[in-house]
């Protein structure tokens, strides 16, 4: 073949195979993996860093608050100012309610349950949503159709109705059923997202190339496609956390939430209703602020993650 007279001009002069030294500069550069690159981009996202800061404070409060201020949040405290309540700018921080309960201790204790509800709801929703979305998008066809109609069904369930029914079955104010309901109703949008990601990623050439070297379905779905879909999944997961915290507050406000002795932000807010009339604005204000700040912080975080984890980002 080497002395064929047929060579086309385009391919006639073949250069030696080895790289020239000139191209070797690439080797000198530091190799960054997906997460390192994402972290670089994330660090440049100001709002996301603010969000992380606020969340850090909230998590600190949730973990250490009740340890540092080891008061029973529901106990009436004689050492706190009297029945008229107190200006929050004086001691104790955030003021107290008329009976001498410290709003601060309430908020610190509430952080635990609110965060717990947020994160466990998210874990349940992500597990189900990723599983169903991945199966639907990966296999397509009638499996996809079946699962997506199931998603439609779940989306059509009136949320409040389920909470009411569950309150009847499990007794109102139980924590575990509440989290389960939140989790079991929060996954459909994530499943749709994951399905869409799988539908587009499975057509990628690298998936075909992986199949061509003999990689099986399960490994393709978990090892080859999932890591490429992780960015949008993480972003969506953060929003589920925020949503669950708001849901809890909403449900507790309607008195279908947690029992009175379980302290959460939603609960604290609900309990403050009658206090607003008395003029003790700090009683609802601080739990409300805790919810709002946390949700905003999580949204900032999600925003930063979306930019950081976008593989098409050129920064």
């Amino acid at each position, binding site marked *: *073949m080497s002395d*064929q007279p*047929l*060579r*086309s*001009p*385009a*391919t*006639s*002069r*073949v*250069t030696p*195979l*080895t*790289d020239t030294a000139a*191209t*070797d500069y*690439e*080797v000198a*550069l530091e*190799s*960054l*993996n*997906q997460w390192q690159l994402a972290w670089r981009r994330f660090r440049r996202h100001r709002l996301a860093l603010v969000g992380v800061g606020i969340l850090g404070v909230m998590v600190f409060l949730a973990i250490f608050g009740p340890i540092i201020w080891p008061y029973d949040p529901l106990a009436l405290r004689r050492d706190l100012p009297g029945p008229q309540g107190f200006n929050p700018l004086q001691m104790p921080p955030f003021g107290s309610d008329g009976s001498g309960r410290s709003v601060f201790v309430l908020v610190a204790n509430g952080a635990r349950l609110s965060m717990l509800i947020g994160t466990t709801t998210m874990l349940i929703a992500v597990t189900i949503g990723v599983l169903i979305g991945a199966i639907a998008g990966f296999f397509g*066809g009638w499996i996809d159709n079946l699962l997506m109609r199931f998603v439609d069904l779940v989306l059509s369930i009136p949320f409040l109705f389920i909470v009411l029914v569950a309150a009847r079955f499990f007794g109102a104010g139980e924590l575990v059923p509440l989290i389960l309901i939140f989790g079991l109703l929060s996954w459909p949008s994530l499943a749709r997202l994951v399905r869409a990601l799988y539908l587009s990623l499975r057509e*990628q*050439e*690298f998936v*075909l*190339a*992986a*199949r*061509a*070297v*003999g*990689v*099986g379905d399960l490994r393709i779905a978990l*090892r*080859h496609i999932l*890591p*490429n879909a992780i960015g949008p999944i993480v972003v969506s997961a953060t929003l589920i956390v925020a949503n669950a915290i708001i849901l809890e507050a909403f449900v507790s406000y309607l008195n279908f939430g947690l029992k009175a002795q379980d302290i959460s932000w939603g609960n604290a807010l609900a309990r403050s209703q009658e206090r607003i009339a008395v003029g003790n604005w700090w009683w609802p204000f601080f739990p409300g602020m805790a919810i709002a700040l946390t949700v905003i912080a999580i949204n900032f975080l999600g925003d930063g993650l979306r930019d950081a984890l976008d*593989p098409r980002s050129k920064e």
Partner: protein
Amino acid sequence: MTVPATVTSSARPAGDSDILLEVRDLRTYFHVLDGTVKAVDGVSFTIRRGQTIGLVGESGCGKSVTALSIMRLLDIPPAEIASGEIIFEGRDLLALSEEEMRHVRGNDIAMIFQEPMTSLNPVYTVGDQIAEAVMLHQRLSKKEAWNKAIEALRAVGINNPERRVKQYPHELSGGMRQRVMIAMALSCDPKLLIADEPTTALDVTIQAQILELIKDVQDRTGTALMLITHDLGVVAETVHDVLVMYAGRIVETGTVEDVLLAPKHPYTEGLLRSIPSRGMKGQRLNVIKGTVPNPFNMPKGCNFAPRCPYAFEPCAEYDPRIEDANPPDVACWLYTPAPGSPVPPRVRPRRPVEVGA
């Protein structure tokens, strides 16, 4: 290894044990909304051990679908392998379970794709990806597989493979990535390497390097090579034998010298004439008139007849098949007498066609 002795279109005087892959009357159809597209419509050929074969034709003629059918990588549905056998080392690949087929892919038959930019998974290092291919087929520890990945990169002419192996695809150039793809394909010593337009997405200087590399590793490892391309220059460079495809059929076969220097089929001739040459300065480029027939509405007779400058009476009526052709290397009524047609074939002598000048 015994291969059932059968008659196929490419009547080569090769011993049976010499035959690595035998494709018999492969028909791959796509069922889409508007009807059925016969992407591959009765293709038969054989590849001997160590043979290099080029599959040539325009876009959409069924080259890639033929390759994907052999690898069984088509999505079924919409695709359907309507009939045919793909005998690889005595086993019909179409009859294997998916599990058995997974052991063939990568291990016995490896494939390189057109787009090196997108054929590697962006979230893993090239070493991870080569090592994965190795570990799927060989009982090796992670460390051993990793070392094998380094060796594979060295074998495809990548400098400093110990560093490169830890890099991510986005850190490599297109040519470098195609080298990685070749390294991955060869990491398990396949008996057949299918290269689907391996240089189309690369620029010309890199193309030459990659072709040289493919030829070089083919020489060294003795693997058979099936090169799919629309570029006749690439074929001339790389392979011994050529299959020319048109509209889902093989229309001409032969050695690269025969087919490129003295094409028989008018389509092959048209392909060669449409390559611009130096002597043509100032002239209009030659083209094959018309377009590939509508896949939903193929002509009754020869698929190429509507575009063929030599078409005569039988061409519109009778469909030439290379299986029935005599001489057996071209499906054209210019050579084979049309059955039931009173018109005798007008045999044209092989005529040299100037390529590239």
